[in-house]
């Protein structure tokens, strides 16, 4: 099946190429003149033909036009416009260098770029942010943060401060595909969610796809966060960095061979003892990460990239409790132009997530992790000015280590135990076309075929019936005893899955300023993060689909209305979505997931659905910029009983997921007062997170026990806060090489005590029951100093 599919892809690409005759191709790379850094999403417009194209993730563009003389307009926010006349009589290379417009403008500094809205493109439900925008958004403790920034976008929420990950359109955190230079990142948080793992200095561009997800992405059902790292300046040595309240950063970039070979090396480290100034113990909590990238431009048609990421969190309470976790990735890529119309990228990616825990007071050492090797080959075929084909294949081999337990010292009573390692392979191939049917109607259609195979492992339980039994007598689900344990060979396929994932999107331009779009995407997710808490913890392990767990399957429908006016100064995006996820696993009451080697005994198969409306109103240009985002949505799940006599979970009724936030409002604004001062402000409001309040109490053996009703029927109080920031660029910067910048920020200006949780317990001193609210951050002022030379 898969082989036939590949043959089909090449056949399609060849046949389409044949139809494009009598035309010539203009192609090249768009770069920043000051650094040779390639630019993503630059508009290359041919006003005469009312057509154009956009540079891809590697700065490459290609457009095929009839023979003739054209005015080519290159537009990119934050950079000076380039207008050039070309006479196209044969295929032509045109590499474009853009100059930052900062120098050319006196008062107004326009820094945002790719966030411009493309009315005619079928791609919807996508938000882009540049590193520049991310750095302007005020955040807690002054540390610019990718994930905290995307939380200001419509349809994106989080479990609050100290909760890791993010939730897109009512999905869970593990349903987000997070790619850093194409490598999969399994845990996006440092320090249990206070910070994200991405160093904003090393990032060029981020894109968040919430719906209408292109066929080139797969493996997760909620969203794709695609992050590209910078390549390094191949013209001159540059250093930038920052000193903040929490962490310091340093990034060095420069040429190894001028204009040909560049490097980038960035590091970030937080200060130890950050949160643990309690006593004079040897307590420590810190994180660090390293980003590296090498780019070698072999010739016009070949580029090589080597990028790496290494991040670790270290947390220790004296010697008794030591916890280390983090991601590492290594990625080798080769960009090759087969012709001026056929761009290809081959990537070999290794990624590893490690989690380690040592508990000295029980004599216990625990290591777990997930490793994968990913080979990707992607093609972009710019067939004509109204037809582009993307296709490719992707193979990922996974090795899951759910945990190895060993004694940490000789006198420990712990017996070494290894949880069963799991192995799997995910193969996928895709083809998608972007097709201009008429001047006003553009269609994008494609399909992704995915195949997932689970291989043999050292221990596999066999059950008489189901791994989960229902105890009719006391009406609870219980773990079943396996009747046998088998040891299938590694080469044996225990179970495999094949899914066809169609993706369709269309854009219809009503006029110059307005368009409507619609999309449908079906996606499969083969990996599951085992977590029955509202927010994932680093202890949660990933598990592959297999004999007992089905892949999650998403169907998402979205429609949107898009408008730009006043020369793109203002834009409005309104979208509605509806999605369903099959095979969403749910956990029986009292399921213990940690170090559980027989996870199938505590899970049941359920489903999830989410729907809502999102509005995003933006002012993109001028001294005063910003956006207002509003989302009205609902996110629910249910797990019905497997037979008529079983109640399922929550009596088989739909209940709110922990990510259900009815109203979500965010406002982000920035104001350039002068060249010296820029001010920023955020305001966020979210309906409180669904939770459980006790419906009664009793006493058993001296313990006060709350009783509970249906799941997630109550809510925490609403979450809201406002943040302010002021950025000072001293005037003396202009005359010197060293450019300093001060960022002053206040998080949670009016000191709102937002509830991270409310717990109900007996006060041991008074003997009375209490509700105790935990809030993580009140008002937090901070100062960060950034520099560049």
């Amino acid at each position, binding site marked *: 099946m898969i082989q036939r599919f590949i043959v089909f892809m090449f056949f399609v690409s060849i046949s389409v190429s044949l139809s494009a005759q009598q035309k010539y191709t203009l192609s090249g790379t768009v770069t920043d003149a000051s650094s040779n850094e390639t630019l993503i999403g630059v508009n290359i417009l041919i006003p005469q033909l009312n057509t154009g194209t956009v540079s891809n993730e590697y700065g490459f563009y290609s457009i095929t036009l009839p023979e003739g003389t054209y005015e080519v307009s290159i537009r990119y926010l934050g950079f000076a416009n380039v207008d050039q006349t070309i006479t196209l009589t044969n295929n032509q290379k045109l590499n474009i260098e853009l100059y930052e417009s900062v120098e050319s403008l006196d008062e107004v500094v326009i820094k945002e770029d790719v966030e411009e809205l493309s009315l005619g493109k079928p791609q919807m439900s996508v938000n882009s942010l540049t590193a520049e925008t991310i750095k302007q958004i005020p955040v807690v403790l002054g540390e610019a943060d990718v994930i905290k920034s995307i939380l200001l976008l419509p349809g994106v929420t989080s479990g609050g401060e100290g909760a890791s990950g993010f939730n897109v359109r009512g999905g869970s955190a593990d349903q987000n595909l997070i790619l850093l230079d194409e490598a999969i990142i399994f845990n996006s948080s440092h320090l249990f969610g206070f910070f994200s793992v991405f160093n904003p200095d090393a990032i060029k561009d981020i894109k968040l796809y919430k719906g209408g997800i292109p066929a080139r992405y797969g493996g997760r059902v909620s969203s794709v966060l695609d992050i590209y790292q910078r390549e390094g300046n191949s013209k001159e040595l540059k250093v930038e960095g920052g000193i903040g309240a929490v962490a310091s950063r340093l990034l060095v970039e420069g040429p190894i061979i001028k204009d040909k070979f560049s490097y980038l090396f960035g590091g970030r480290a937080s200060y130890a003892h950050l*949160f643990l100034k309690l006593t004079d113990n040897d307590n420590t909590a810190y994180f660090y990460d390293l980003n590296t990238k090498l780019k070698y431009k072999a010739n016009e048609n070949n580029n090589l990239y080597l990028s790496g990421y290494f991040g670790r969190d270290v947390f220790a309470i004296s010697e008794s409790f030591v916890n280390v976790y983090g991601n590492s990735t290594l990625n080798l890529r080769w960009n090759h132009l087969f012709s001026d119309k056929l761009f290809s990228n081959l990537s070999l990616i290794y990624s590893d997530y490690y989690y380690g825990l040592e508990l000295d007071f029980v004599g216990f050492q625990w290591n777990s992790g997930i490793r994968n090797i990913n080979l990707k080959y992607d093609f972009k075929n710019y067939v004509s000015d109204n037809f582009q084909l993307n296709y490719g294949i992707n193979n990922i081999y996974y090795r899951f280590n759910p945990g190895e337990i060993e004694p940490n010292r000789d006198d420990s009573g712990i017996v070494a135990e290894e949880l069963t390692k799991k192995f799997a392979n995910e193969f996928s191939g895709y083809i998608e076309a972007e097709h201009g049917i008429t001047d006003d109607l553009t269609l994008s259609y494609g399909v992704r075929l995915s195949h997932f195979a689970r291989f043999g492992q050292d221990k596999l339980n066999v059950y008489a019936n189901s791994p989960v039994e229902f105890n009719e007598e006391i009406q609870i689900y219980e773990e079943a005893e396996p009747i046998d344990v088998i040891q299938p060979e590694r080469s044996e396929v225990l179970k495999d899955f094949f899914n066809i994932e169609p993706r369709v999107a269309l854009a219809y331009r009503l006029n110059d300023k307005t368009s409507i779009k619609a999309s449908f995407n079906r996606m499969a997710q083969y990996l599951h993060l085992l977590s029955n808490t509202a927010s994932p913890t680093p202890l949660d392990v990933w598990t592959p689909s297999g004999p007992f767990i089905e892949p999650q399957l998403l169907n998402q429908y979205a429609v949107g209305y898009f408008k730009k006016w006043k020369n793109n100064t203002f834009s409005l995006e309104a979208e509605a979505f509806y999605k369903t996820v099959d095979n969403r696993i749910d956990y029986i009451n*009292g399921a213990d997931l940690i170090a559980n080697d027989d996870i199938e005994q505590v899970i049941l198969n359920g489903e999830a659905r989410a729907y809502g409306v999102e509005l995003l109103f933006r002012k993109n240009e001028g001294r005063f910029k910003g956006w207002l985002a509003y989302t009205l949505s609902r996110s629910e799940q249910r797990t019905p009983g497997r037979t008529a006599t079983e109640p399922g979970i929550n009596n088989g009724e739909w209940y709110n997921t922990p990510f259900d936030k009815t109203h979500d409002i965010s406002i982000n604004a920035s104001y350039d007062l002068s060249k010296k001062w820029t001010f920023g402000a955020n305001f966020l409001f979210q309906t409180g997170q669904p939770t459980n309040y006790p419906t009664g109490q009793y006493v058993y053996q001296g313990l006060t026990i709350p009783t509970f009703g249906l799941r997630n029927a109550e809510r925490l109080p609403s979450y809201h806060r406002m943040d302010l920031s002021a950025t000072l660029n001293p005037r003396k910067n202009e005359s010197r090489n060293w450019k300093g910048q001060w960022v002053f920020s206040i998080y949670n200006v009016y000191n709102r005590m937002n509830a991270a949780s409310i717990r109900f317990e007996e006060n041991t001193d008074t003997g009375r029951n*209490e509700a105790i609210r935990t809030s993580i951050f009140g008002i937090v002022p901070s100062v960060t100093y950034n520099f560049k030379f």
Partner: protein
Amino acid sequence: MKKFIVLFLVILSITACEEVVDIDVPFDDERLVIDAAFKLIMSENEPTVRGEVRLLKTAPFFDDELPPVLDADVFITDLTTGQIIEFTDANNDGVYSAQTEEIFQLNTTYELTVIAEGNTYKASTQLVPTVPIDTIELGDTVIFDEDDKEVKITFTDIGAREDYYLFDFGFDNLLGTTEDRFYDGQEFTFSYFYEDLNEGTPVTISIIGVDKQHYDFLNLLIEQSGQDGGGPFEAPPATVRGNIINTTNTDDFALGYFSISETYEFSIVVE
């Protein structure tokens, strides 16, 4: 294992701020609660039985008093011999005590019957064996607070048998559970940390044998009683069903548990 999540909460609470707040909570669930945990206290002499049957009703979460259930018929039947132990509520406070002392035996099923308010409730159990505590020593490790007192508890698990243990650290409601999965057949030492304990306080620590079902039940209760905290890392809680069945109307179930456990005690003075 679950307990270690607590550590994350502790980390969070270091920067966090906690405050008692007023919350309106619903109350829609009035049920009978049967608290019937019997201990067979093991010693060099004859073992003795400790325990009674407490009958009460659930109440709104912020109520100070829980209503006792009076005038119930309570008895335990030895299903092997058919012998019956009667329980009576002498003080009219919902606490039913045995009229005769019966030493529970291993491998014998005992059935508890409670007839109250027109319903008959039944639960059956067996005596669950356990092992003695070998030693308890004081330690000086500091984890959270310098004033916390560390005690190191050592016991020897019996191999080739799945054992579940309940530890009672005294003071009425300091409980902890552990299973032998990671130390089957080994001598095992772990540390417990007392908060706010004055020097010279005598403490009795008990090791109590429980079976898998009771262990699962206790784990959830301890978690939900607030000893384990709460917050973003908390699993969605649900009312915990014990082993008691309403034979008159199965939907109108009772809460609580009937258990009989071998128990060894060990006393120490914390200095």
